């Protein structure tokens, strides 16, 4: 039974889409309820994973495998380990929250909108469960389409520019990845007794003897695609535009889940397939990550639009995740994984909050606000908690990830220098600067023009909005005070992932000797 569970979770939203197709356009409430029911059902189904998941076991669990394209040995293979378990749960958790939090934000073409969100969920879950590179690629690209429409149809003023930019940036990277996937398959066909395949597990074995030069090229092709998705400096400029233009639910999912695709890809594919290349490039990618941490924070600081500020803060936060991954230590890896979840929760919540105030005041400019804490005290309390989570206050979730990442990168032998950590650590000061400065300008100070903001009266949060935020806040505190629940799920995975890299680094596993980057 459990082997169908992942397929069930992945495609359950399709049932919702089918139901929506049969519905008329008139009854908005019914459309919303149908979308919500479908998303919630998916979430509850995904909770069954927790019951049967064995966190002590290595390898993949809930594996379902079937041949898909016979001649090419392409399979439908799904399965999860500790890392993907957490990310699948994040996806199924955030989708209903995004729908609930933006209940009344969309009225134009509501049915299509709801369908797109559900379709997006299928794509995202699919990416996290695929163990076949071809299948992964299909989901990876499939995810782009609904997001493109969500930004392009329901977005803000410059939505078309933003949607096209988002689409082209991502497509550019993923085409190179497709080439690399094919090359990998062909390489696997070339090893003794090998044949063309895209099955990840087979490929990892096959690639273990790959010459360093080829490793490096294929690694770079994958890495470029993932770096754009992260986004890693300097490939990040699609992000602020996409976020600012996307409707709230789009931003929540984009920040909450889509931004994890890149870092997930690094861990899932780049590290096990090309360990030597990953080791060789680790200092360079970490340098970009560290630049991103500081750069993202500094640029976030001078933004005038709250949403854009949050978007740039993502560049900074994801820089931490990349740094953790390429520290190639257990602390760094665990920190990176938990930080992906943390960023999904807190930045997702921040976009929800920004959406809530935008729905009321129809502006997102920091300068248009001030004294909101007096008018909307409940909103201000939630905003404060999430802000603190975002700046990594100990006791809330963000700190756990940041601390593990910095600790890992500090002791990292792969990076070989503490400079990365020292510079990255100053990021916690800048994070406090941009978040608290924004918070102060929006929330503190005197109430504006007799309570009118941009000509609108601000009402405090409704029960529905609070209901969307409370689950996030619970997790924020939970991860902050008792992260063991989550860290224990991915512990075995992190240990095995790091062990393999470590063996390559210390030479236990001998790879072909050519090392392009360190050649004189």
């Amino acid at each position, binding site marked *: 039974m459990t082997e169908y569970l992942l397929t069930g979770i992945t495609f359950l939203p399709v049932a919702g889409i089918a139901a929506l197709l049969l519905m008329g356009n008139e009854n908005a409430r019914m459309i919303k309820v149908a979308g919500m029911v479908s998303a919630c059902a998916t979430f509850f189904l995904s909770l069954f994973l927790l019951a049967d998941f064995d*966190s002590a076991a290595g390898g993949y669990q809930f594996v379902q495998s079937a041949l898909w394209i016979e001649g090419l040995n392409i399979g439908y293979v799904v399965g999860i380990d500790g890392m993907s378990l957490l990310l699948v749960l994040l996806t199924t958790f955030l989708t209903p929250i995004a729908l609930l939090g933006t209940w009344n934000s969309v009225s134009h073409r509501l049915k299509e909108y709801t369908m797109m969100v559900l379709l997006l969920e299928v794509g995202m879950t699919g990416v996290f469960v695929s163990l076949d590179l071809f299948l992964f690629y299909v989901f990876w690209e499939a995810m782009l389409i609904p997001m493109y429409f969500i930004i392009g149809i329901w977005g803000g003023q410059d939505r078309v520019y933003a949607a096209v*930019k988002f689409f*082209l*940036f991502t497509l550019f990277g993923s085409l190179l990845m497709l080439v690399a996937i094919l090359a990998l398959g062909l390489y696997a066909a070339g090893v003794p007794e090998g044949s063309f395949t895209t099955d990840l597990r087979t490929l990892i074995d096959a690639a273990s003897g790959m010459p360093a030069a080829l490793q490096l090229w294929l690694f770079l092709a994958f890495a470029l695609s993932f770096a754009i998705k992260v986004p890693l400096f*300097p490939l990040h*400029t699609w992000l602020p535009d996409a976020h600012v233009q996307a409707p709230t639910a789009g931003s929540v999912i984009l920040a909450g889940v889509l931004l994890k695709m890149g870092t997930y890809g690094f861990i899932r594919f780049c590290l096990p397939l090309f360990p030597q290349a990953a080791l060789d490039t680790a200092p360079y990618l970490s340098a970009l990550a560290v630049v991103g941490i500081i*750069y993202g924070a*500094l*640029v976030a*600081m*001078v*933004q005038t639009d709250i949403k854009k500020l949050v978007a740039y803060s993502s560049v900074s936060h994801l820089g931490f995740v990349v740094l953790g991954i390429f520290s190639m230590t*257990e*602390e760094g890896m*665990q920190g990176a994984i938990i930080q992906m979840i943390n960023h999904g929760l807190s930045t997702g919540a921040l976009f929800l909050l920004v959406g809530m105030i935008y729905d009321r005041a129809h502006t997102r400019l920091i300068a248009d606000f001030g*004294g909101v*804490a*007096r008018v909307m*005290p409940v909103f201000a309390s939630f905003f404060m908690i999430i802000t*603190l989570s975002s700046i990594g*206050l*100990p*006791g809330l979730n963000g*700190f*756990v990830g940041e*601390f*593990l990442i*910095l*600790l890992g990168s*500090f*002791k990292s032998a792969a990076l070989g220098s*503490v400079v990365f*950590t*020292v510079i990255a*650590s*100053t990021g*916690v*000061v800048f994070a*406090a*600067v941009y978040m*608290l*400065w924004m918070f*102060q300008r929006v*929330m*503190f*100070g*005197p*109430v504006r023009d007799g309570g009118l903001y941009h000509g609108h009266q601000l009402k405090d949060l409704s029960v529905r909005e609070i209901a969307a935020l409370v689950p996030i806040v619970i997790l924020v505190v939970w991860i902050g*005070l*008792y*992260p*063991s629940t989550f*860290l*224990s799920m*991915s*512990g*075995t995975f*992190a*240990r095995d992932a*790091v062990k393999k890299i470590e063996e390559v680094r210390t030479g236990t596993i001998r790879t072909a000797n050519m090392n392009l980057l360190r050649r004189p």
Partner: protein
Amino acid sequence: MNILVPLIVVFPVLGVLVLGFLGSRIKNEKLIGIFGSGMVGLSFVASVWIFVSMLSWDEASRRFTVELFPWISTFTSTSSSLSVSIAYQIDQLSILMTLIVTGVGFLIHVYSIGYMHGDPGFWRFFTYMNLFIVAMLNLVLADNFLLMFLGWEGVGLCSYLLIGFWYDRKFETGGYKPGTGWAGDAAKKAFIVNRIGDVGFLLAMFLMFNRFGSLNFDTVFGAASVLSPGNETILWITMLLFLGATGKSAQIPLYVWLPDAMAGPTPVSALIHAATMVTAGVYMVARCSVLFALAPATMTTIAVIGAATAVFAATMGLVQNDIKKILAYSTVSQLGYMFLAMGVAAFGAGVFHLMTHAFFKALLFLGSGAVIHAMHDEQDVQKMGGLKSFLPVTYKTFLIGAIAIAGIPPLAGFFSKDEILWKAFSSEYGSPFLWIFGVFGAFLTAFYVFRLVSLTFDGKPRFDSHKVHPHEAPRTMTVPLIILAALSTVGGFVGVPESLFGGNALEHWLEPVFRTANAKLGLDHHGPVLVEYILMAFSVGVAAAGIVFARFVYLKRQDIADSLQARFSSLHKLLFNKYYVDEMYDGAIVRPTVRLSEHLLWKGIDISIIDGLVNGAAKVVAWSAQGIRKWQTGVAQVYATAFLAGILLVLSWLIFK
């Protein structure tokens, strides 16, 4: 006993949860106040219980740890990876700190019931105050660096929330552009400046974990104690930890946030920005005495920075007119003394001064709160005067606090400050120069605090008595004042030095905590008693001179003050404007960073260069497509001509190749 330890923390946690979730619905102010104070009171009772039991135990069992649950661990089942628990450690030092935090905290909570009366944010205030107690207790009770850091940043958060408590009010920033700050600005400044120090703390933890594979006090100190002084890693660790301490405890160069922090309600200034939180840095150094003892260079740095801060802050306190600002600079200065003590390896003396300072500075702040309360939110001492007849209780208690801080025997401040001065002079790590700084600071202290007393309570009223009718504060406020005055009077007797035929009980109590450090430092030297008497007499004389001089100038000959101010007007301006340090930081760091980020990074690199390239590439495609598109005219003759030309080309190539 093991259940009592977590209870110390659980009570205020309960306070936070109940008040945080239900506070806005409870309409009865008294209920909130009693509940909030009661939780801290219960916590105090639990700590007293433990302390009293400890008195009867032998030395070895006075130190024990209670582990609650695992906190951050990598779960990779590798022995070298991180694993940290929420665990509390009771020992002679942490129980003392707990008593101070919960005891003084309780008094200030009670005082706040009167002080915050009628404030619409009453419940919010008590929630934050309880949260502060929770964080501070975690800081002092932690058995590892990471949990200490949780408390460390937690108290910073509460400080932020409470400085910004009246976030829609302005406050006097002082200096050359008065009245320009929002409370929110001050709150943010406090948090950010603290965070700069926290980076030091973080990096120190990374170094420690890298070197010792653990963040537990026992493991780290145990592993460090076999090292010899001058170890480079330890040097870095202690320097970085001290950077953290300069932020939290407002020392040069990160002291700038504390004077602005006075924008918060006065009980906050008393509890957080005088008695407890700002002493966290001192506590941390004391806790890590083993590490610091291994780094002589760091010790010297601490002593020098402490002594310099003690004098530097006191000079600024000389000329301020805001009653709370004067006390704020005084706090910075007194914290300097504590660090001076740490730096000359007089750990016990530093902790002693931490304790007495908690009593008399909380007293002075709460007294100033009573004055502000009576004067309807007036804080300028130039607009007060003659208040002693209106506020007899406040005046008497305030006077006791003032004498205590000035260092006149036999009040609490005398014993602790004198011990620091003596150690600064006699310790192998001290020097006569440090002593001179300390004594000069003591003179300034006596002067500014009696300038404050004279301007506020003595002389003729300088306010409009038709508009302002000062009245004594309610009992909830005066009773804590009286208790603190009593503590400021007798608090010093626990540390009477042997030279004055005292038992120095506190030092003996704390001795086991600092034993390893003292052994490392090889301290056993006490100095000749005669010299000690001479120095003691001298410093008391200096303090008395400061008092007499201040009273003479501000009561009898105001003209001297005016003429001095006129003659040294540029010096006065320099002091009044706080040496322009805020402006320097603003001009040298803050503004350039903002400008660089906006113009170079965002508008330059992001928009012009990166997006310019991206959009440029798109434009090239669009532009070339525009050009090529024109060839598709749709006119058949043109296509036919093109065919013909093509055929001719191919033919000619075939023929003439």
